[in-house]
């Protein structure tokens, strides 16, 4: 489950944010009657199609896994927090419909109608994210129910279960993370092209539009992340202790950058900055930070889990800081000199920013999920109580199978996207058109011959 979720989440940034980026480009194209912008928007929509298709698949598998792996969780709590998924499901449905209309409407629909039908897409994505985040925030700070004598949840108050204290900070942090990541990923592709000397308007536009979006939002994300960390400090002190590897409750707590927590509570390695952790949590060195030892050992993450969460957290913050620097560089050049930075190092940085921000998203997810151990529902249900009673061997076989299938799918997805990129690049070169006369020329959602193929052309199977 962790693995499928972790794979699924790498698709999420593009799923949530690519429609918005594409629509911005589309609008630009319509407004200035700019064929380059329209071409970019069309190509991005082809990418959107392939990734959405894979997202549908991995998403369906996830909802199956809730039953296959967590029957205890869903059996007991489904009625309390399942509604978030309900919201997600219909937002997703709406998104599927709108994406279909948008993708297949390029040719026949009137340009304006087509654009307007695409407009609700980002809103549907936001709504879907809301549903999922509501469910996840509930697992962090469960609320909206009381337990009866047998420990069964009763008196469900759905409003309280949906809008838990963690929802706001988690949601905004997540949304901006998705926009920033998608922006950097898309811009990164064109940054690579730029570095290889393809400095035409196509690459310039393809880089600038998504990069500007991401750069503007990066500092915002920094503030949101900070506010989320402080919410964790207030609402889930033990999780906070794990991400900051704080062993004993104390004031004047030092901050460790990386470092490793041992089961006896001492920290080895890493950089120690005195007092900083208390400062960050409550703005004064006197702030009391709850330590891991404040709860019994079986109700807190182990030293290894805490170290993992801590590393993931530090890595995420580190990447975020670097991205802020990159964004400032970009802003300086744009505002001061009204052009893109000239240094190849900027573009090298931008090319890495996409991968780095995907890593950051993954790290954020690890921080959130590992930091909650051993609870699946914070303070109410341990992972062991929620997991399926199916024998471990069966589960491992299944896991192996899923792993195989996922490697296959993600490998294929990557291969397909790279193929599409190469094909477009060839098409863009003045002599490239000749290559398209190959026999096997029917292609994805994107390119495809119009008329039913006559005899003895391409085969498939």
């Amino acid at each position, binding site marked *: 489950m962790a693995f499928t979720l972790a794979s699924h989440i790498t698709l999420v940034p593009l799923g949530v944010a690519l429609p918005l980026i594409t629509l911005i480009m589309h609008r630009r194209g319509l407004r200035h009657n700019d064929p380059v912008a329209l071409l970019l928007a069309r190509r991005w929509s082809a990418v959107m199609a392939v990734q959405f298709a894979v997202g549908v698949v991995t998403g369906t598998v996830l909802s199956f896994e809730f039953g296959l792996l967590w029957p205890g969780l869903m059996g007991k709590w489904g*009625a309390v927090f399942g509604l978030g*998924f309900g919201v997600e499901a*219909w937002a997703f449905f709406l998104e599927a419909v709108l994406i279909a209309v948008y993708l*297949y409407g390029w040719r026949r629909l009137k340009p304006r109608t087509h654009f307007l039908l695409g407009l609700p897409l980002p809103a549907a994505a936001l709504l879907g994210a809301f549903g999922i985040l509501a469910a996840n925030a509930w697992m962090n700070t469960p609320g909206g129910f009381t337990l009866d004598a047998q420990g069964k949840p009763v008196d469900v108050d759905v409003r309280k279960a949906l809008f838990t204290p963690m929802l706001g900070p988690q949601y905004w942090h997540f949304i901006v993370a998705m926009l920033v990541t998608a922006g950097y990923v898309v811009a990164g592709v064109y940054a690579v092209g730029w570095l290889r000397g393809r400095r035409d308007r196509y690459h310039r536009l393809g880089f600038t539009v998504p990069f500007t979006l991401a750069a503007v939002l990066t500092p915002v994300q920094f503030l949101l992340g900070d506010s989320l960390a402080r919410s964790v400090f207030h609402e889930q002190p033990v999780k906070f202790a794990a991400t900051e590897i704080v062993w004993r409750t104390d004031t004047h707590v030092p901050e460790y950058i990386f470092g490793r927590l041992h089961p006896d509570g001492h920290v080895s390695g890493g950089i120690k900055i005195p007092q900083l952790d208390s400062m960050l949590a409550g703005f004064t060195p006197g702030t009391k930070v709850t330590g891991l030892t404040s709860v019994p050992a079986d109700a807190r993450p182990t030293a290894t889990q805490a170290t993992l969460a801590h590393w993931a957290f530090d890595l995420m913050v580190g990447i975020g800081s670097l991205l802020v620097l990159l964004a400032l560089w970009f802003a300086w050049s744009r505002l001061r000199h009204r052009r893109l930075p000239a240094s190849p190092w900027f573009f090298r940085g931008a090319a890495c920013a996409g991968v780095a921000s995907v890593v950051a998203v993954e790290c954020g997810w690890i921080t959130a999920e590992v930091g909650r151990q051993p609870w699946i529902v914070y303070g109410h249900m341990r992972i062991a109580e929620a997991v399926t009673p199916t024998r471990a061997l069966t589960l491992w076989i299944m896991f192996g199978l899923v792993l195989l299938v996922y490697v296959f799918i993600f490998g*294929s*997805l990557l291969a397909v996207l790279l193929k599409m990129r190469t094909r477009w690049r060839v098409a863009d070169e003045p002599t490239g058109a000749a290559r398209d006369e190959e026999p096997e020329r029917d292609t994805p959602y994107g390119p495809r011959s119009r008329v*039913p193929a006559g005899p003895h052309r391409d085969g*498939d199977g």
Partner: protein
Amino acid sequence: MIADLIAALLLLVIAAYACAGGTDYGAGFWDLTAGGAERGRRPRWLIDHAMAPVWEVNNVWLVFVLVIMWTGFPVLFQTVFSAMWVPLALAAVGMVLRGAGFALRKPVRRIAGRRLYGAVFALASLLTPFFLGAAVGGIASGRAAPGTAASAEAWSNPTSVLFGLLAVATTAFLGAVFLARDADRFDAPDLVGHFRRRALGSLVALAVLTAVMLTVTRTDAPHVWHGLTHGAGLALVILAGVCSLATGWLLVRRSGTWSRATAVGVVAAAVLAWGVAQRPYLVPTSLTVAEGAGAPSALRWLGLVILVAVVLIAPAVALLYRLDTQGELEPLSDADLRGTGPDHRGEV
């Protein structure tokens, strides 16, 4: 009361998935049986074109089924997934392979690659409905009582196997009926006959399987059998029968337009008949709707969410199917994605 309403909604969504998803799986079935690369080229071309704009939407219905299940009937959800672990896990794997095979087959250009993805897509289209049907059969025959551990018996029994086969036959039938009409729409008259013959064939197979199913369930799943042969259940069974006769007649008469509606009628009526026959149980004779229902306030909110969903989504889905049937939806062609002409690539 509210639990009954949600149960009815759940049944409706299952029926919708059976129709939409079933058509989709059916297309995969015919893809599998279309023959070699040369002989099967035209049918596969049609399948690709006809499915592409709507297949994601068809499959999201299943997510709905699962969400309504775990929010509305968490005990049922836990029960079914514990007892039917193996078939449901296999169905999930099938779904992944199928979706990936379909989505990735198109962008691949080499024949060997397309063969691989195509085979994956087609085989998964066969296995997934079978296992889903088998799981339903296990529920209908009361083998998934709460507390049942996962066992082969829960899904490899006569009722389950028959339900699985029925599911496959249903998808094949729906797929062929829809593709026959699509062939008309895409100006491929040779394929109209091709799929009409197959639609009739699978209709016959469906009828035979239904007859066998009714004799087997008499002893193997007595509660459902009783429900299917009395009262509202019987009325729906008769409706399904009438619809299939009408579909057969329309197919023989070569009138494509209405055969889709009657084919959907067959499947929807059959699914509803099964649901009605199970009343008042979610799992016959061990878990009633009232016992399996979640907290009442959660059910009310679920009802509200479904209502909002219907208000928002119905027009969108209607728009999609309308645009699709009017031929307004058309994939971008190579030329659209190619930035030719020097004016498109002015230097900075």
